[in-house]
C-alpha cells in the first residue's frame, strides 16, 4: 500500500527551484532515509511533502488510508519564542490535538498516550518543567514525544538525533526502529540524517539528493553497491 507518491516534484523558494524533478514513493511500513549535503534541500523537500509550502510543479499524492491528521513531524528547528510559557507536558499533549477534531479538550486516552511517550523518551521527570528552560537535547526529546503523539501511521523526522549525546543517539535509532517494526504497528518513517552508518543499518530505503536533483533512490542494500561502485 502506497502512503505517499511524488511525481516530477520541484520545490524551492520564491520561484527559485532548489530541487527539481523528483519522483519516488513511500510504501506503508517503509523506513526511508534522506541523505544529502547541507543546503541540498532536504528540509525543503520535507516541508513540501507536509504541504507547509506548495510545490512549484509536479504533484504529491497521499495514498489511500492516510489523511493529513495522521502525520507526525519533528521539525529541524522550532523557532519557539524565547519567553513562551509552556510546560513539557503541555507541549507533548499538543501533539494529540489532531486526533481531537472539534472536541475542545483532551480525553483520558490522549493524556495516557502523552504520558507513555514521555516515558519512552525518558522525560517523565521533566513533565512540569518549562520547555524553554531545557537543554537542546531535552527539547529535542520533548518534540519527538510530541511527534509520536500525533501519529501511528507515518513520521517525518528532520534530523532527530541532532543535539543528542552518543548514547541517546543510539537509543533514538533503536526507538525509531522499534516504531517501524511490524509487530508494533509498523509506522512508516521518513527521516533526514547525516549519519550514513546508522542510515544504512536501520533504513530500508535511501534517497540521496544533491546538485538540485535526485542522485539515488533505492533500497539500503542497493545504496551500498552504489557507494561501492562510485568509490572504485
Amino acid at each position, binding site marked *: 500500500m502506497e502512503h505517499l507518491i511524488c511525481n516530477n516534484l520541484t520545490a524551492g523558494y520564491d520561484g527559485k527551484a532548489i530541487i527539481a524533478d523528483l519522483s519516488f514513493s513511500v510504501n506503508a511500513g517503509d523506513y526511508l532515509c534522506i541523505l544529502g549535503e547541507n543546503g541540498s534541500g532536504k528540509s525543503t523537500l520535507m*516541508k513540501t511533502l*507536509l*504541504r*507547509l509550502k506548495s510545490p512549484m510543479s509536479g504533484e504529491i499524492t497521499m495514498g489511500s488510508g492516510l*489523511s*493529513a*491528521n*495522521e*502525520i*507526525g*513531524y519533528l*521539525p529541524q528547528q*522550532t*523557532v*519557539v*519564542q524565547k*519567553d*513562551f*510559557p*509552556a*510546560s513539557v507536558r*503541555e*507541549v507533548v*499533549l*499538543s*501533539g494529540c*490535538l*489532531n486526533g*481531537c477534531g472539534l472536541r*475542545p*479538550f*483532551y480525553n483520558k486516552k490522549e493524556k495516557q498516550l502523552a504520558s507513555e511517550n514521555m516515558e519512552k523518551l525518558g522525560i517523565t521527570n521533566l513533565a*512540569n*518543567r*518549562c520547555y524553554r*528552560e531545557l537543554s537542546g537535547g531535552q527539547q529535542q526529546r520533548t518534540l519527538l514525544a*510530541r511527534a509520536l503523539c*500525533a*501519529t501511528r501511521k507515518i513520521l*517525518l523526522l528532520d534530523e532527530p538525533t541532532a543535539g543528542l549525546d552518543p548514547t541517546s543517539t543510539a537509543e533514538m535509532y533503536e526507538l525509531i526502529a522499534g516504531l517501524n517494526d511490524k509487530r508494533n504497528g509498523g509506522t512508516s518513517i521518513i527521516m533526514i540524517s547525516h549519519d550514513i552508518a546508522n542510515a544504512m543499518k536501520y533504513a530500508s530505503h535511501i534517497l540521496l539528493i544533491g546538485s538540485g536533483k535526485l542522485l539515488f533512490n533505492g533500497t539500503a542494500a542497493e545504496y551500498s553497491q552504489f557507494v561501492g561502485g562510485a568509490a572504485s
Partner: protein
Amino acid sequence: MTFGERIDQLIYLFNNFDFARYALLVGVLIAFCSSLLGVTLVLRRLSFIGSGLSHVSFGSTTIVAAIAMIIGVESFQNNFFFVLPITILCSIWLLLSGPNSKIKGDSALAMLSVGSLAVGYLFMNIFPKSANVAADICTVLFGSTAILTLGSKQWLVWLCVGLSVLVSAMFLLFYNKIFAITFDEDFASATGIKAKTYNAILAIIIAVIIVLAMNLVGALLVSALVVFPALTAMRVFKSFKAVTICSVIVSVFCSTIGILLSAMYDNLPLGSVIVAVNLAVFILFAFAGLAARRKKA
C-alpha cells in the same frame, strides 16, 4: 474629605445607583476578556495590535461621523456597528499575514495604525466639527473619563455581557488549538490542524475584545489592558495554563481597584487609573519573579 468618608460615599454610590453597578460589571467583564488573549498576542510579537486596531477604530469612527453628517443623521451613537466590522477585517489581515509574509507583523501594524490615525485626523478637519464629533473622539482616544459615562449606556452594558460570554466560550472551546498554533504553527499545520481557520477565529475574538476594551480605557491605552496582565503573569508562572489563569485574575483585580479608585476620587480618570494599577502589580510580580529565581539558584 477623609478616606473613611470617601469609602462611605463609595458604598452609598453602589447601593443607590444602577450606573455604578453597571460600570463595575462592564469593567470586570472587559478586563476578563482582554486578558484571555494577552499571552498569545505577546508571544506573537503583536503586543501593539491593541494600538493598531484601536487607531483603526478611531479612523473609522471619524469617517462614519463624516458620513453621518453628510447624509444628515444627527446621532451616530451606534457607530459601534460600523466600527466593529472594519476593525475585525483589519485584525484578520494582520494575523493571517503571519510570520512568513513580506511585510512583517510589526511593520504592518505600524502602517495600519499611523495610516488610520492620519486619515482619521484628516476627516476631522475636512468636515466642520460639531460638538458631537469632538466629544465622541475624545471618548474614543481616552475611554470613559468617569464611571458615569461607562455605566450609563445601557446598550453598551448588555452588549458587553453578550460579547464577553461569547468570547470566553470561544476561548474555552479553542484553548488547546490556540496553544498549539501559537507554540508551533508549522507543526500544527503539518499534522492536519487547520491553523489558518483558527487564526481567523482568533483574529475575530481579538478585534471584538479590542473594540470592547476601547470603551473602558480608550484607544491610546488599550494595549496596556491587553498586554500588562499577560506580562505580569509571565514573570512568575511558566506553563501556559498557569499564565492564562493568573493573568485573568490580575486583570480583573486591577480593573476593579481602578474603577473603585476612580469612583472615590473625582479627579482620577478611569482609563489611566486602571493602567496605573496594572503597572504597579507588574512591578510587584517582576520583583517576586526575580526573588523566586534567586532562591532557586
